[in-house]
């Protein structure tokens, strides 16, 4: 085969990938195809590298963000949120939330993340709850005031755990940033980056943090993602033995507490009423929330004065 034909073949393969059929197999194929061409001296080393690089970048998406990188994204997203809303530094209340939250997280489909699940109350009257990628979960005092039982708090936390399990936060990152990061990193990464490379990568990082936080705080997820998180929450609640109607109970109070046009859940989430409809449509009937005295006692002790 002539050199021209090999180059044409590689180009064709790239076109096929750019056309939307990008997958690991095609990426591999391009790589092998390229290396064969290289070994036969038909493309230069540099050409081979650039073919591999472009193919790779196209095939990348949020799924390629490693748990370790998800952890670092989550830490900075969390830091932005804590600085915007301020923490509620009440030891017993936060201890109770972590005890409940970590119990629920262990029953999720993704009980282990790089840095684990951790929970913090935000000192805000707004009705809000946020899940930063990797397992950092924040719940406002306003949200906790919508909860009249441990089962209801469990429902709020289970919904946020489901967002993390489904990696919804990472999907808020503009795809072009993932591609950009890979272009900066090139074919091989080093453990510590020098000068320009670090500056460029930090820029992409800042952009990613802003994508996630603006989705959490301003734009909200799609209705589909919220429905998925509600469904995930119902599963977790059932596994741990909480009444999945705790979610409905919480949403009912929330509907009363939400101020129309508010900057909190009123803005970023489907209306509580429509969420209740969705949840009940999936569940066969529903019984009244049975109160377990021990749960109610520790709920009052932990969050009674929230």
């Amino acid at each position, binding site marked *: *085969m002539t050199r021209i*034909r090999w180059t044409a*073949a*590689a180009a*064709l393969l790239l076109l096929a990938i750019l056309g939307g059929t990008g997958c690991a*197999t095609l990426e*591999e*194929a391009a790589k092998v*195809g390229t290396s064969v061409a290289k070994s036969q001296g038909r493309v230069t080393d540099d050409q081979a590298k650039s073919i591999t690089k472009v193919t790779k970048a196209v095939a990348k998406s949020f799924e390629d*963000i*490693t*748990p*370790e*990188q998800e952890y*670092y*994204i989550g*830490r*900075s997203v969390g*830091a*932005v949120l*804590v600085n915007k809303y301020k923490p509620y530094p009440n030891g017993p209340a936060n201890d109770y939330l*972590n*005890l409940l939250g*970590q*119990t629920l997280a*262990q*029953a*999720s*489909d*993704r*009980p*282990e*993340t*790089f*840095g*684990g699940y*951790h929970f*913090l109350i935000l000192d805000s009257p707004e009705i809000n709850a946020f899940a930063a990628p990797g397992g*950092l979960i924040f719940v406002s005092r306003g949200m906790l005031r919508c909860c009249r039982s*441990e089962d209801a708090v469990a429902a709020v936390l289970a919904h946020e755990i489901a967002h993390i399990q489904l990696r919804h936060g990472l999907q808020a990152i503009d795809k072009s940033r993932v591609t950009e*990061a890979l272009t900066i990193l*090139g074919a*091989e*990464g*080093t*453990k*510590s*980056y020098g000068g320009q490379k670090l500056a460029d*990568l*930090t820029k992409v*990082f800042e952009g*990613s943090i802003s994508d996630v936080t603006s989705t959490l705080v301003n734009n909200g997820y799609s209705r589909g993602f919220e429905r998925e998180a509600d469904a995930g929450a119902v*599963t977790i609640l059932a*596994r741990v*033995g*909480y009444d999945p109607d705790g979610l409905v109970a919480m949403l009912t109070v929330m509907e009363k507490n939400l101020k129309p046009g508010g900057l909190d859940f009123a803005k970023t989430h489907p209306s509580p009423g429509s969420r209740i409809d969705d949840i009940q449509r999936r569940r066969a009937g529903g019984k009244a929330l049975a109160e*377990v005295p*021990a*749960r109610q006692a*520790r709920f009052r002790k932990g969050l009674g004065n929230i």
Partner: protein
Amino acid sequence: MRRSPAVLLVCLALLGFSAAIEGGGKEMSVQVKQGQVRATPSFLGKVVATLAYGDRVETLEEKDGWIRIVPPGGKAPGWMHSSALSQKRIVLKAGTKEAELAASSGELALAGKGFNADVEAAFKASNKGIDFTWIDRMQNMNVPPDKILAFVQEGKLIPAGGGGR
């Protein structure tokens, strides 16, 4: 332009090849900061070993989302939840031959590549108003297993083997 039959053949061969890889998977990597190995397939099981990020383990059997593994260094086998393990080989050192492979193959991941502690430090330097104190504090809010068990029993909840699937 004519489609090269050689490239198409390579594509087809690789489709079969990648399907074969998925069937195996005898070795896995720890993909969390601290990988806890337990005596029984449950979060309530006693922790018998703690593995580091990137450690390679040999898998023995799978049960309800838990995988029985042999830790590196021939230690006694134990159980890890599947969400703590990755099919990918996690390469810790950059600049090695393995690392080069890691960068170009979906089967491998390079630890510390991309968004890492250095990037976070640079982010902090250019966003001085953003305080990480509470994030560090949060990361230390851990609940020991016996407390969770007591919480579950007191609240008449279901002692979770832990994790679904």
